[in-house]
């Protein structure tokens, strides 16, 4: 029983963090057919922004958290304004944007390395202490992660289904030309999407770094997982990405519990390959082209 609770707790925590990262990625691909390879670095930037806020101003944790999320959104906006908007509508967009975002990613990562150095810091934006469920120790931080991820993702779901700009995003994802004819300014929609994805990535970065440490390359590992989650869910499916994230988080926690931490990612990947051979467009691909 304890083993199951342990797996559930750590699996849900992992899954919640993956979901935050993966949902933003799926939203970007769903609306603009753009795969953002810099997504992992967006996470890192959010984490460092929160770290710096606490370190240099001693602001309360909630402010630091907001600063981290804002930094993620800001960097998304900057990337759209400086790079992405010039590439929309060009030939081979899908491949070229991958290369461009890879370039942006390495630039930003190198910048962080120059500013903060390669030395790993611990994330001050976290809550200490544990409580017990049965015989299992649960960190308050895990609860914070779960709550925060749920709040942010629910907010996104609400925005996408209930607000005007959210509907514009979904309309663009469904059919760009039709959305434009209905008066949706797609270039602004794209900017909004990148800002939202950046903000979610920033939040994910803060949460992930609170469980490990801050380093310029900390975003790579969660980004690889977010990629895998989006692929297994079917690229562009936002709901699918959320569900797949939780499922894979639980799966990984179980593997880590029974086989050791080392095999978490590889076995998860093996599972994904099997899923893709069985369903090449992902679990939620094709049927759910309507990304909501």
């Amino acid at each position: 029983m304890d083993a199951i609770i342990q797996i559930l707790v750590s699996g849900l925590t992992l899954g919640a963090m993956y979901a935050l990262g993966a949902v933003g990625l799926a939203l970007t691909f769903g609306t603009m057919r753009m795969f953002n390879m810099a997504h992992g670095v967006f996470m890192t930037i959010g984490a460092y922004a929160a770290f710096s806020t606490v370190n240099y101003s001693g602001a309360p944790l909630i402010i630091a958290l907001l600063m981290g999320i804002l930094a993620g959104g800001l960097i998304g906006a900057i990337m759209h304004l400086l790079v992405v908007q010039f590439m929309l509508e060009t030939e081979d967009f899908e491949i070229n944007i991958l290369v461009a975002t890879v370039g942006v990613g390495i630039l930003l990562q190198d910048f962080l390395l120059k500013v903060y150095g390669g030395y790993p810091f611990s994330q001050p934006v976290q809550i200490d202490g544990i409580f017990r469920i049965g015989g299992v120790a649960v960190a308050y931080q895990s609860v914070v992660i779960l709550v925060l991820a749920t709040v942010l993702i629910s907010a996104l779901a609400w925005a996408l289904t209930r607000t005007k700009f959210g509907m514009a995003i979904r309309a663009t994802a469904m059919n760009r030309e039709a959305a434009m004819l209905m008066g949706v300014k797609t270039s602004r929609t794209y900017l909004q999407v990148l800002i939202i994805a950046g903000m979610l990535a920033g939040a994910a970065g803060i949460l992930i770094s609170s469980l490990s440490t801050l380093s310029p390359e900390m975003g790579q590992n969660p980004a690889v997982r977010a990629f895998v989650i989006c692929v297994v869910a079917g690229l562009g499916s936002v709901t699918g990405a959320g569900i797949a994230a939780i499922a894979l988080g639980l799966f990984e926690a179980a593997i880590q519990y029974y086989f050791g931490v080392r095999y978490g990612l590889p076995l998860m990947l093996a599972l994904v390959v099997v899923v893709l051979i069985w369903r090449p467009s992902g679990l939620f691909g094709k049927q759910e082209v309507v990304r909501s």
Partner: protein
Amino acid sequence: MTSLSTIQKHLIGALIMLGAMTIVPAFVTQRYFLGEIIVFMIWASVAVQWNVLMGHAGVFSLGQMLIFAVGAYSAAMSMTYLDISPWMALPLSAVVAAAAAFIIGLACLRLGPAYVALLTFAISYMVYVLIITDTACYTTVAGGCQRFFGGTTGFSRLEDLGFRQMLRDNWVVGNYFTVLVVFTISLVASILIIHGRLGLAFRALSDSPVYAAARGLNRTRSQLIAFVVTAFFTGLTGAVYAAHFRSAGPSLFDFSTLLFILAMVIVGGLRSTWGPVFGAAMMMILVEIAKGLGDVRNTIIGIVLVLFVVLLPKGIAGMTSRLFHRLQPKRIGVRTEDPATDRT
């Protein structure tokens, strides 16, 4: 224009370039420069193969350094554990790399381009994580713990190609010619693929997928063939890398190395024949110049990647061929007979 076919023209071009490279050691005697040219040939060979795969076959693989590492690691491991000579290890490693690519390709290539990119990237990352987290000692070498896949330290002090005994101080010239041979094989193979039947198939598939399929072309099968064939030469290059540096380690999986070579392909121009060679030369020179400015290698790679993709998505090759077309007298109503000439 002339009676020579495209493929012959490219092969003659390759011969001229490689001929020029054989006399380089007569003029360049500093070991450092020869070493740099060796590195150039190694990366250029990887870039050339990557261009065949990504530019022509349309397989957007981010796992090329994994294939390269498979070649390097198989060479290192077969030398360390099986005690075979480096010369035997080269072809063996190429075959192992091709086999690895076959398995990865079977799993990935039925998917769309973005999926292929992500999965190949994820698989290389997974292999990297498995290698560096390995802590169990397999044997002991020179008093140290040798992990089966080398762990975080990798393999070092491998047997050399034998030129240190044969040529004494000039051993690097021996290595130079070994790498040159591998580069030649890789370049000629790429020309034969791009302008041969397989390249024609890819052109047909990219021009009109439906019509090509209707004429009996199987996209997945052609891509799998391209993936395996390019992996053979990429793996061979990886093995010669291990033989030249006498080491192979997890630094091969460094993201920045992958991007360095990706920058060569992009700068040179996807879908060209010669682009990656020029791109490789340009990136090597750029990074060499930048060494004086401090640790800015990654910054430069990032800036170059973004600038080229945004401003010159067809790379240097695309730019020069456009210039070339503009300089030629206009022939009204005459289309270029061979679409391949557009892709010089």
